[in-house]
């Protein structure tokens, strides 16, 4: 057993983790633990842009950005958090530019911005250009730029260290246990302050835009340590995953003028969102696609529709809308080069010549580890802070995104709240002491890993995972109803039994044992899938991404509150005991786009 001591430890080296690390390092001895080399993190796949009301091309205001965020979140967003996000987005994006991020530029040399779903001029209700971008590789540029700056500032990385447990001593965090993937040895990181930035868990569904490694390790570690999770039923399905793989095709395609078309050649979003049409928020568009498919208007009767960004199509609709802008094939290629490649490689389609086959894909976790606007983790609906424990990025639930995240707001979230976590850790470490490690801090996790390593049952992790993912896709997906979700919950509990009692792992070795670690990740997915299904079953209304056919309306009387789910014994307890912050004064209204 190796024991390290650092003032601050960050788990995860995506955008949120590295931002936290940069800031923490300035005031505290900091280590970053990541199961992937930092530049392999999924932030690097983000395409379309990072939202900030710079107003480089037209009037924009942070107040509009905040309101759009709240409305997009179907009024479950905390308005104090939306305010912080929208206000600080501006300096955060500028800070990235100062760090060297190569944004695309406007004619005048300022940062280029494009349209994105749900971002509007609140007065005219028209789409506004708020998404700052670097072609369709914005996340790649952010991830690279942050890593470069971490190198410049000598941040300590423990690359390919897989965190497997959070160490709590009573109700205080004391450190993290991680497996060195190369050697297979356990390491204990004893720390005063810890930030979790482990990203999302799209791998819970069979069609997803998420990496193989996005398995919800962070929330599972919290849950297993008796800590609550928040708003877990809210998971976003992005409307435009490349069919059938689910690889993401950015909303930026529609931002540049692309439109969704059904088998009859209709631009069907005109019916669902008359004002902003294809740029309505994601939950709305995903449902529209499902409904079109259900009405047998999918392409060739199948489960997908087209997204058409051929210049002649785009220009026809621009003309119809009375806009003077026109595009050509070179423009599309310059603005969306990676999308061109994905479509060619995986679908054999050249988007400037043929429409792109798309269908909704599991994309983003709105819920997660409950935090406040300072990135501090809280343990209950009364905002009780756990000193020294922080979370940021997709794994955290501040909640900025409420019931449905607006495009470009995750990258903003990473930078704004990652930075806060870093600043907070640096401040905290200045006056706090180490919480002593409890006896045998890695004992339980060591035993669990040994159990998995030596398991000789009949079910491969893959078989269990496959069942889990299709069950979630079919029954806890875009549309939900009571009986289906109850079935899913039962299946998940059965799969958990199988995982405990009948698992088969081939690799019994120590070094680079990805068989073992994949199986451990499956355990995380199972735990939080159960939480997700249970929360979805309990919330008897439709709000944002949580859309129930048996309760199709939003119910602000009973459910205008965050779901807090607490582990209890072998089960769980759900309470709506964290109120939604309404301090900007945006009272819930019906959402029309």
């Amino acid at each position, binding site marked *: 057993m190796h024991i390290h001591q650092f003032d601050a430890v960050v788990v995860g080296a995506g955008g949120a983790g590295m931002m936290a690390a940069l800031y923490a390092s300035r005031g505290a001895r900091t280590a970053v633990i990541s199961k*992937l*080399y930092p*530049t*392999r*993190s*999924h932030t*690097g*796949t983000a395409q379309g842009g990072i939202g900030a009301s710079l107003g480089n091309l037209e009037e924009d205001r942070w107040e509009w950005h905040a309101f759009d965020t709240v409305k997009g979140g179907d009024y479950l967003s905390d308005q104090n958090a939306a305010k912080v996000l929208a206000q600080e987005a501006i*300096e955060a*994006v*500028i800070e990235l*530019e*100062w*760090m*060297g991020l*190569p*944004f*695309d*530029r406007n*004619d*005048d*040399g*300022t*940062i280029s911005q494009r349209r994105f779903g749900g971002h509007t001029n609140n007065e005219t209700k028209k789409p506004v250009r708020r998404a700052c971008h*670097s072609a369709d*590789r914005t996340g*790649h*540029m952010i991830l*690279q*730029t942050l890593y*470069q*700056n971490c*190198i*410049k500032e000598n941040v300590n990385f423990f690359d390919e260290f897989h965190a497997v447990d959070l160490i709590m001593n009573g109700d205080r965090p004391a450190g993290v246990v991680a497996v060195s993937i*190369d050697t297979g040895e356990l390491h204990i990181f004893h720390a005063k302050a810890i930030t979790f930035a482990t990203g999302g868990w799209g791998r819970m569904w069979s069609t997803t835009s998420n*990496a*193989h*490694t996005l398995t919800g390790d962070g929330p599972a570690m919290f849950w297993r340590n008796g800590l609550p999770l928040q708003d877990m039923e809210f998971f976003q399905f992005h409307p435009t995953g490349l069919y059938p*793989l689910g*690889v993401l095709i950015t909303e930026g395609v529609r931002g540049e003028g692309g439109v969704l078309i059904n088998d009859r050649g209709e631009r069907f979003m005109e019916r669902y969102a008359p004002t902003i049409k294809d740029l309505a928020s994601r939950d709305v568009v995903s449902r529209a696609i499902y409904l079109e498919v259900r009405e047998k208007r999918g392409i060739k009767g199948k489960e997908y529709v087209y997204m058409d960004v051929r210049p002649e199509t785009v220009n026809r609709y621009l003309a119809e809308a009375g806009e003077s802008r026109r595009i050509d094939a070179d423009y599309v290629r310059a603005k969306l080069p*990676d999308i061109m*490649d*994905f479509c060619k*490689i*995986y679908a*054999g389609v050249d988007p400037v010549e043929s429409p792109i086959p798309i269908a909704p894909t599991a994309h983003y976790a709105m819920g997660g580890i409950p935090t406040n606007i300072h990135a501090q983790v809280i343990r209950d609906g009364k905002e009780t802070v756990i000193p020294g424990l922080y979370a940021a990025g997709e794994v955290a639930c501040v909640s900025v995104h409420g019931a449905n995240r607006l495009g470009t707001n995750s990258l903003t979230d990473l930078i704004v709240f990652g930075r806060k976590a870093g600043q907070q850790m640096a401040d905290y470490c200045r006056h706090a002491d180490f919480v002593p490690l409890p006896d045998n801090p890695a004992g339980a996790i060591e035993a669990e890993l040994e159990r998995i390593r030596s398991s000789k049952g009949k079910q*491969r*992790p*893959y078989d269990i995972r496959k069942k889990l993912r299709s069950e979630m896709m079919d029954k806890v997906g875009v549309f939900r109803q009571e009986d289906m979700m109850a079935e899913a919950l039962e299946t998940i509990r059965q799969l958990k039994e199988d995982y405990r009692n009948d698992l088969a*792992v*081939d*690799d019994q*070795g*120590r*070094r*680079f*044992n*990805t*068989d073992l670690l994949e199986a451990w990740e499956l355990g995380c997915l199972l735990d939080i899938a159960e939480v997700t299904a249970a929360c979805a079953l309990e919330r008897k209304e439709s709000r944002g991404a949580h859309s129930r056919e048996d309760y199709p309306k939003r119910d602000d009387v009973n459910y205008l509150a965050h779901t807090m789910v607490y582990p209890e014994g072998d089960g769980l307890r759900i309470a709506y005991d964290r109120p939604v912050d309404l301090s900007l004064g945006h009272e819930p209204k019906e959402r029309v786009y």
Partner: protein
Amino acid sequence: MEVKLRIRRFNPEKDQKPYWGEYTLTDVEPTDSVLELLNRVKWEQDGTLTLRRSCAHGVCGSDAMRINGRNRLACTTLLQAIDASKVIQIEPILGLKVIKDLVTDFEAFFEHYRSVMPYFVPATPVPSNGRERYQSQADRARFDDTTKCILCACCTTSCPSFWASGQYVGPAAIVNAHRFIFDSRDGATNQRLNILAEPDGVWRCRTIFNCTPACPREIEVTRAIGEVKLAIQQGAR
């Protein structure tokens, strides 16, 4: 259809030396990627098969390997794009130490990367109005190509000069230096050019040109190296 895979295997805890493992998969589609096939071997037949992967669509740079003798990302290599009629041969990339099966040790690779100051050193103080530094579209376009690098090592580990001497910084590090050398906002050009003028810098490149076709991001690697060479010859910007 059915395909056969021949995979270079090595388990440091068991094997004295590497060997070839052979696997047959049925129900394979021409649109399956090599990564999907490797996953199927691992998940359905032999869980000990070890490889790195994450994003599965060519962006994270985890799964560079030699497929039928060429460096590629497994996740962007579809069967229809390679000759799958006989066996598909899969080996770790060359020139980095093999840890296990297809997993190689990237520490040396990242050390070369770090050695070229792969970070922004601003030429001017931050603007006093608190806004972004301006950059013209032409200046931004000047280094666009080399911003695309995902550090997968396909280029560096396809380079005979790197195979001959692991001390050579290699194409990937030069690409990442290029990204800053030609950024109009950066002020450390001379330092980077001095680093790359050292014996293990750009002059080890013999313009063999393996790197360019190896790049899954279609970066014109050899050209970028050529531009750095020229900048060194011409002295500072």
